[in-house]
């Protein structure tokens, strides 16, 4: 990708986490091409009108705003993206994709970055959310369906989760919520297992080598 003089100054003034200055072009447009290929999103078409960020209900909580995510992909700033809170905070409510005038699939791009982050060695900024998604898939693998009570219990048993919840006081709120749900008969304690659970477990075994 060609860069203008303005881009260069912006990029050079930005320090990477290691403290080293980053040179433009050390990744070229490989990352952009790769992301476009894998998501089918028209990322190069973004002209930074910020419609996505204005439509986003949670952009306030994001460190890299949706329109910046697209810009970062264009610039090849993969690590900044994978380290961001944005990729975990996104609700995938699809407001951004729906309203983009250039039909850039913003939500799909963010979700793809999330799956890249999950497969990378970078520690997720929102640990609980990352662990939650993984726990959900684990429970699905165990039963073929997901039972809410078992899902929450399994999440709490993951390393570090309970401790963090106790420290933040979140555990107390969650116990209250759980009791309310229990009193209303909304929690089912016995999970139902799919009879063809083997088929589902086979899917998990073959999930690597994602693209055919």
């Amino acid at each position, binding site marked *: 990708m060609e860069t203008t003089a303005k881009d260069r100054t912006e990029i050079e003034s930005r320090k990477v986490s290691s403290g080293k200055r980053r040179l433009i072009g050390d990744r070229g447009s490989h990352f952009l091409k790769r992301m476009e290929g894998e998501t089918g999103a028209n990322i190069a078409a973004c002209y930074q009108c910020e419609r996505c960020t204005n439509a986003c209900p949670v952009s306030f909580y994001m460190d890299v705003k949706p329109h910046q995510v697209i810009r970062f992909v264009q610039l090849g700033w993969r690590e900044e993206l994978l380290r961001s809170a944005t990729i975990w905070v996104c609700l995938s409510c699809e407001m951004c994709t729906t309203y983009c005038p250039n039909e850039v699939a913003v939500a799909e791009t963010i979700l793809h970055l*999330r799956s890249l982050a999950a497969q990378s060695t970078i520690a997720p900024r929102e640990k609980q959310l990352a662990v939650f998604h993984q726990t959900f898939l684990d429970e*699905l693998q165990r039963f073929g369906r997901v*039972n809410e009570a078992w899902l929450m219990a399994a999440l709490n048993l993951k390393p570090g989760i309970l401790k963090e919840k106790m420290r933040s006081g979140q555990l107390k709120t969650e116990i209250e919520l759980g009791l309310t749900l229990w009193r*209303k008969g909304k929690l*089912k304690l016995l999970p139902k297992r799919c009879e063809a659970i083997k088929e589902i477990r086979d899917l998990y075994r073959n999930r690597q080598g994602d693209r055919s």
Partner: protein
Amino acid sequence: MKLAFYPGCSLEGMANDYARSILAVFNHLDITLVEIDDWSCCGATAAHSLSEKMAVVLPARNLAAAEIMGLDIVSPCANCFNRLLFSKAMIQKKIFDVPWTVTGSIQVHDMTRFLARPDMVERIEARVRKPLKGLKVVCYYGCQMVRPPRLTGFTDYENPMTLDRLATAAGAKVLDWSYKTTCCGASIGIGRRDIQESLTARLLEKARQTGAEAVVVSCPLCQVNLDLMQRDKASGHLPVFYFTELLRLAFEAENGSAEWFRMHIADPVPLLRAKDLLL
């Protein structure tokens, strides 16, 4: 008429009351729902967060099962509906290998949209025995049902009307409001409750400002999310109904019982009694 029914995990647990009211309503409408045999979870947000392949192959198993049955799928849960459609679209693009045969011969219907078709609305109106007169509601659609429009096929994605039409058919007074498709944040409730509560609280506040006495939803996650926000009585009281609960009430007014609404956290029984809709 026969349809394949894909309930989804929520309807076995937190939204069990939704499942019961759906079966009652379809029974009244003389539509047979055949539950997809040994269905499995669609993977929800987790699958497409962590592995795109899983997001395609997990729903595919249910699509294939429905194709064998030869019936169109009707899905009561907005997220399941979205995931099934996504999987179907991706299989047609042939990006991932799927171990089952999915030809795309069957349709996936969102339940509200299926019932809001003119012929179905006529059928519903013919069966209403006691219109829910004087009940002022707002309809809340959430995000997964209408967006992204190129996938869901909603053309009126800024102002969807399916739930509005159904609630009107049941005799309720439907108010207009601007938050029909604003996300309630349910998917982030575990992990970042602060964000979720700020989004949900705003929805409830706007519904109250509109003058609504209740909210009508079709998504099990939206219902639980909006309902759980009202667990302490101080924060006001705005019952959150599944649209099928209102239809059922209008269909079998005489037999209506408080037992139907036992699972609600913001108890709708006093409101319904005050309106003389429930004994």
